[in-house]
């Protein structure tokens, strides 16, 4: 992974000093709330319901074990012994003290980490596929360009105060796992006809209040130009994006207002001036950064391992875990492993101090001292030998990290919601927990099969509910919490946004509603059909009909 040189280190150190002074001035009354707000946000600090929330950047979801140990130490020392991995591959602390945040950033700087631009109206953490570098379907490892873009976007002076937040995702695999179509800019890497690296550029995607999938603005951009091309896009946005209404300030609104053709014309007009300028990436720079992401020192292993095969045959629990949590690897004899942060009854994406330490140890022992964070809010060891899987499983299981539910209904993607977040309209974690309890039978879960369930506590959509096969959105109606349900959303290359099935439900109705959706699927599915396939084939109507079947009668009764 990328290791800082003295230039990178100086920048994060200077940031700590800058932020420490900003915090001092705020506490001394030299900065107003309004003036401090964008400053703290650009350092990931929100003022929340109970305490500030600090969002720590995990660039493109890659962590070293020593960094995770530092995060563990921070959660113990400055928080309440746990942290929350977010849908943008970051880590959030729920209970830090404002006064401590400069010290936390100083601690992070000692392990080449920071909280720069994890919030605020600027270019945010760049995200990618959690299996980058090892996925069998990968065409190009996007991490080197992601790192070059991380550096380019860090304190980019022209784009420090955009109309609204700006999210970039990169993907280099056949199956998109980075949600490129749901980002302000999505970059999809491929090889062109001459086997040169090229990029398909999507713009104007995003979830939130106005969910929309991105539009292709450039079918084939040469990789050298990615920075200048993005500068052209963001300059047009910076100058012309709306600033009067934050709900209409994302780039998607501008792209929609102008139309993609006019937007592209303006971008091209800007780019004509920037193209081939100094920010054009050189072969040498790409090579320098790519050198940090070279192939791990794998051993030559046979494709099969007898002890592994024997364990699968004799231990159904292990076999179930392998089926859900172990993933293909491009190297023979190696596998990637997802450590589930979705045990039933715990807030999705939360990890305790102890669990972080355990995962760091597991990464050291089994996976070249590194790990990844996925946007599905789980942790991944990317390079585990087949013969080590059983020992790893036993160890992970002992620490609640081996729930065999990856990709299943209870692998719920969920924002912190109304329990923590001051933006939320409704709680999301208790809904996730109630659904997990409803489906607490593993055989049944496996029978239901692949299903993505996403929950957001408000229309800002941090839980990406629009692209969940089942999406749940917390809404506020007359001061009480209700939940709107969508089905048919999907991430990936064939992404789609879900359709609302009807009027919202109360919290206690939600497990039953999901149960009814599953009942319809089980009754209607053909062989091998996943929930999403059935929804796409038969449409929303049969689900809606069954879910609301006795709703009308009940409502009348309630009015009596």
């Amino acid at each position, binding site marked *: 992974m990328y290791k800082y040189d003295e230039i990178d280190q100086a920048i994060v150190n200077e940031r700590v000093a800058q932020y420490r002074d900003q915090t001092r001035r705020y506490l001394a009354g030299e900065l107003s709330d309004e003036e401090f707000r964008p*400053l703290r946000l650009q350092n990931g600090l929100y003022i929340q319901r109970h305490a500030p929330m600090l969002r720590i950047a995990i660039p493109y979801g890659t962590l070293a074990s020593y960094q995770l140990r530092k995060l563990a130490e921070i959660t113990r020392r400055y928080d309440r012994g746990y942290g929350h991995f977010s849908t943008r591959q970051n880590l959030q602390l729920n209970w830090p003290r404002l006064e401590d945040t400069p010290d936390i950033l100083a601690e992070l700087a000692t392990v080449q980490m920071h909280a720069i631009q994890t919030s605020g109206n600027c270019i945010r953490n760049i995200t990618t596929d959690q299996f980058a570098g090892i996925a069998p379907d990968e065409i190009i490892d996007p991490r080197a360009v992601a790192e070059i873009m991380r550096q380019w976007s860090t304190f980019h002076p022209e*784009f420090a105060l955009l109309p609204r937040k700006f999210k970039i995702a990169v993907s280099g695999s056949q199956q998109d796992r980075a949600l490129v179509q749901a980002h302000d800019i999505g970059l999809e890497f491929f090889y062109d006809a001459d086997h040169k690296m090229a990029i398909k550029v999507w713009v104007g995607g995003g979830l939130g209040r106005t969910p929309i999938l991105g539009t292709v603005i450039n079918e084939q951009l040469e990789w050298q130009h990615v920075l200048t091309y993005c500068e052209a896009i963001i300059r047009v946005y910076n100058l012309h994006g709306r600033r009067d209404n934050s709900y209409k300030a994302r780039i998607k609104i501008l792209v929609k207002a102008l139309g993609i053709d006019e937007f592209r014309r303006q971008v091209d007009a800007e780019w004509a001036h920037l193209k081939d300028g100094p920010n054009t990436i050189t072969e040498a720079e790409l090579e320098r950064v790519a050198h940090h992401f070279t192939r791990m020192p794998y051993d030559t292993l046979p494709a099969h391992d007898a002890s592994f095969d024997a364990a699968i045959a004799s231990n159904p629990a292990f076999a179930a875990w392998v089926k859900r949590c172990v993933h293909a690897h491009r190297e023979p004899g190696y596998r990637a492993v997802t450590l589930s942060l979705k045990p039933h009854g715990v807030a999705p994406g939360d990890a305790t101090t102890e669990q972080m330490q355990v995962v760091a140890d597991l990464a050291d022992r089994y996976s070249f001292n590194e790990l990844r964070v996925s946007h599905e809010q789980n942790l991944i060891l990317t390079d585990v030998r087949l013969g080590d899987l059983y020992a790893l499983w036993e160890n992970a299981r002992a620490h609640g990290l081996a729930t065999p539910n990856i990709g299943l209904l209870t692998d719920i993607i969920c924002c912190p919601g109304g329990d923590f977040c001051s933006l939320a309209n409704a709680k999301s974690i208790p809904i996730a927990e109630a659904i997990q309890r409803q489906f607490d039978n593993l055989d049944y879960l496996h029978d239901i099969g692949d299903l993505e369930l996403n929950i957001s506590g408000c229309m800002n959509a941090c839980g990406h509910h629009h692209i969940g096969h089942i999406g749940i959105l917390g809404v506020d109606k007359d001061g009480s919490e209700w939940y709107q349900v969508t089905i048919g959303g999907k991430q990936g290359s064939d992404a789609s946004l879900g359709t609302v099935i009807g009027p919202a439900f109360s919290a206690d109705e939600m497990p039953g509603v999901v149960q009814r959706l599953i009942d319809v699927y089980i009754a209607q599915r053909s062989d091998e059909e996943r929930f999403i396939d059935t929804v796409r084939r038969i449409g929303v109507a049969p689900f809606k009909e069954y879910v609301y079947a006795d709703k009308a009668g009940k409502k009348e009764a309630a009015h009596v």
Partner: protein
Amino acid sequence: MSNATPKQLIHGNQIVADEWTLVKLPVLGEEVVRKQAGKVVLFKLTGEPGASAEQIAATEIPASGKVIVPLSVWLARKAELQERLAKGELGVWLATHEVVEALAADQADLNVFPLIAVFVERFADGRIFSIGNLLRTRHAYKNELRAFGDVLRDQLFFLKRCGYDSYLIRADRSAEDALAGLQDFTEPYQGAVDLAEPVWRRRQRNGATA
């Protein structure tokens, strides 16, 4: 000396006296309904004027000394301002919702102006950065480029990198304190106006510390 108004202008990395008088558009009769900045921008695409002909005509320009006039006044009253321009006494200012091209359209060489200023109403309005960049790179403007309005210490480093060299700090804040903001970072990553090359072109970066 001790009772003098503190100097608020930073130019050339030091606090200096301001020789320029800012000329504003007069508010006539009832307050003109002002659209929020962002809306004006969207409307800008359809050509919404920023100031009325009446306001422009009624703008009073001091008869002597260095003056900074609004873009709309310069465009409409160019003829009468030529003499001041020739004497090096005329600067132009624009607001962040106005377009640089309007200034550059019939003034091929912007370096006839000894000063161009950009007014930022709210410090969070980042259009000021792109405007500075365009003036310096696209239009090759080389003279004093000033930011005024809601100009605060924590934006100065970005303003500097976008080509500004002159900052009129908001009246209730210390310019002395704000000076420090220009030094926040020593070696920024990306190429911008002040340092055109990204760090990997400026510096040898082989030394990854393993």
